């Protein structure tokens, strides 16, 4: 997967650096706490939240269980509606397909609406290599792109930047990319948003090719759905003549009716709103309204490998709401960049090692980037048991065992004695010994028990050791950890 941030240090090192960046921490803390309490309020407004969550989980599980059938059905319905479907087994193939489609239009620039899938495959860089300039149009993505930076949050990728930094980036960089920032730009959010509006408008109005992802694809109708706030999505989806959507194969839902679940749970979990400002749905092409050509690129890139793992496959239910990031004590302190992938936070910790495998140090360390407090599971609108998958992946890193890579069954070697083990161990130590894990330490003993069917060797020992503790440790968790180094001494 080309989405690995090149030269990315393993989680503990990156996290360590983030913790010492006071601005970053302050921004993150403010942001996650704000959105966390707003979300709780938005969720409390609907009395049937538990039933919606359960239905969302079941819809996704059912779809994944019959994914081949639904993919074929989706292909048929998109084609019947005037779209063209392409299949991409990995990032390189997806990039080649998209670049080819853009080049065929004769255009050398595209407007993009925020999409995790295209970040995952490194599409912008691939297009640039073909002489095509991709303009990010989501405000936060624009900040990231102009700042030559990396996203740090799924929903608000520039969450690590404060208004002063954003002002400076706009004032310095906008002229490089198009319309310069207005003279005397201040750092009030309204002025910054206005600067972005002006800067991007000229691009929208002349754009001939738009590139998007999608939040959902409906198999029975061939409908794609994009949920957004700013209207940049609508611009990209309706003004260009050609629309190319790159979407992971797990984004399917069987029926139109299924949207009634996710259009209730996603906005409330994500932006903590009853409904996000704009949702667009389109089915193929419409005569004289919107793009004349629509291409759907269905992306595997490790998803079928994830599907092959009976415990890990639940990660494919994810609707990318980012609620799990906002409640995670480790994310709050480590920041999004430490996860070394476009998927940060708890979901990143279980998704990246599955999409990419656990061969690299960063991916081997990700399953340890958690205190297993379980807050992520509680807020997840599709009930992904993230702690369960984390423990499962730790076992895989520590003990090795069967896995699927690029469709082939492989047997992974245990990480023992390898650099990966050391990285993993450091991540575990970091997550545990850091003050962040403290608050949740008390709950941990109880929670971990549930996920721990057996004793784990190597780094896993740290977790299984907690099984032998009294229900509530007599000494504060942190003291216990400091004293025992998570059971390492007991080894």
């Amino acid at each position, binding site marked *: 997967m080309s989405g690995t941030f090149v030269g990315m240090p393993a989680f503990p090192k990156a996290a360590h650096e983030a913790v010492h960046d006071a601005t970053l921490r302050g921004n993150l803390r403010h942001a996650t706490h704000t959105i966390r309490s707003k979300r709780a309020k938005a969720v409390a407004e609907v009395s049937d939240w538990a039933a919606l969550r359960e239905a969302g989980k079941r819809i996704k599980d059912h779809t994944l269980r019959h994914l081949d059938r639904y993919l074929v059905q989706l292909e048929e319905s998109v084609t019947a509606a005037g779209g063209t479907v392409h299949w991409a087994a990995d990032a390189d193939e997806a990039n080649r397909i998209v670049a080819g489609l853009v080049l065929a239009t004769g255009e050398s620039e595209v407007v993009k609406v925020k999409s995790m899938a295209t970040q995952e495959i490194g599409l912008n860089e691939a297009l640039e290599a073909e002489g095509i300039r991709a303009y990010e149009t989501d405000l936060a993505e624009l900040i990231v792109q102009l700042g030559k930076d990396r996203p740090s949050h799924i929903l608000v990728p520039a969450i690590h930047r404060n208004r002063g930094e954003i002002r400076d980036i706009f004032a310095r960089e906008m002229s490089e990319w198009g319309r310069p920032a207005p003279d005397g730009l201040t750092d009030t959010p309204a002025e910054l948003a206005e600067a972005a509006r002006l800067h991007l408008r000229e691009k929208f109005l002349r754009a001939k090719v738009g590139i998007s992802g999608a939040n959902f694809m409906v198999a029975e109708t061939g409908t794609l759905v994009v949920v957004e*706030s700013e209207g940049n999505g609508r611009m990209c989806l309706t003004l260009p003549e050609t629309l190319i959507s790159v979407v992971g194969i797990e984004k399917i839902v069987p029926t139109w009716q299924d949207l009634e679940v996710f259009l209730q749970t996603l906005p409330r979990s994500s932006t903590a709103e009853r409904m996000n400002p704009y949702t667009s749905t389109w089915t193929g092409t419409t005569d004289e309204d919107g793009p004349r050509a629509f291409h759907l690129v269905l992306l595997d890139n490790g998803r079928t490998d994830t*599907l092959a793992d009976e415990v890990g496959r639940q990660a494919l239910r994810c609707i990318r709401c980012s609620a799990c990031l906002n409640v995670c004590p480790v994310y709050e302190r480590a920041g999004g960049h430490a996860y070394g992938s476009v998927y940060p936070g708890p979901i990143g910790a279980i998704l990246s090692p599955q999409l990419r495998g656990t061969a690299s140090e960063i991916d081997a360390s990700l399953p340890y980037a958690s205190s297993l407090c379980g807050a992520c599971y509680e807020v997840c609108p599709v009930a992904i048991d993230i702690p369960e998958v984390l423990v499962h992946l730790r076992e895989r890193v520590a003990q090795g065992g069967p896995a699927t890579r690029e469709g082939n069954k492989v047997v992974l070697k245990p990480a023992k004695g390898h650099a990966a083990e050391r990285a993993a161990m450091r991540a575990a130590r970091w997550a545990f010994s850091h003050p962040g894990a403290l608050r949740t330490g008390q709950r941990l003993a109880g929670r971990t028990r549930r996920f721990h069917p057996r004793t784990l060797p190597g780094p896993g020992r740290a977790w299984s050791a907690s099984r032998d503790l009294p229900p509530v440790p007599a000494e504060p968790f942190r003291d216990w950890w400091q004293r025992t180094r998570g059971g390492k001494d007991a080894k």
Partner: protein
Amino acid sequence: MNSRDVILGRVRRALAETGHDDTPYDQAVERSYLREHGERGVAETVELLAENLADYRALVHRCDADGLPGVIAGLLAERGSASVVVPPGLDESWLADTDVTRVADRAETTPHELDRVDSVVTACAVAIAETGTIVLDGGPDQGRRRITLVPDHHICVVRVPDQVVSSVPQGLARLAPERPLTWISGPSATSDIELDRVEGVHGPRTLEVILVGTV
């Protein structure tokens, strides 16, 4: 082997070891969630729509059918609009009281031309009270998607109570998936800068919703 076969083959192999499951779709998903939240009469539902629209900073106006042309004319005048995009099937009487320049919604119009128009007036397909959402489906009285996107001022007329439903499930059931839909809940907004909500990024910065009819 092409990638389609590769991917479908991988999916099938990935699922091969999972026990056989032929539960039909309708039985696989228990839908014990509510069709709507709370019990409301028609008037209360319309009231809730108005409240939720306003909560997300849409400007809400109410009138009866006879008053509609006057309200629309007033809003355009207040805004100082010189031109307005008009979908082909919009009820002509709605604009009877204003002499603002009409711009037809035509396929040939370029986005740049559209950018020079001040306002747009449309009807809608359905409005959802619980979420304060209006949905456009590209019908003749709503026009192409872009006309409610590029101009900075959108006036949307909702016929109450006929076009109002309580909930998202009820709204979806009324909509045709094959039509291009735009769900709008307040003017465009961003919270990307320190999570401060700012109204109006790329879509119309002013959204006015007129609830027309009596309940």
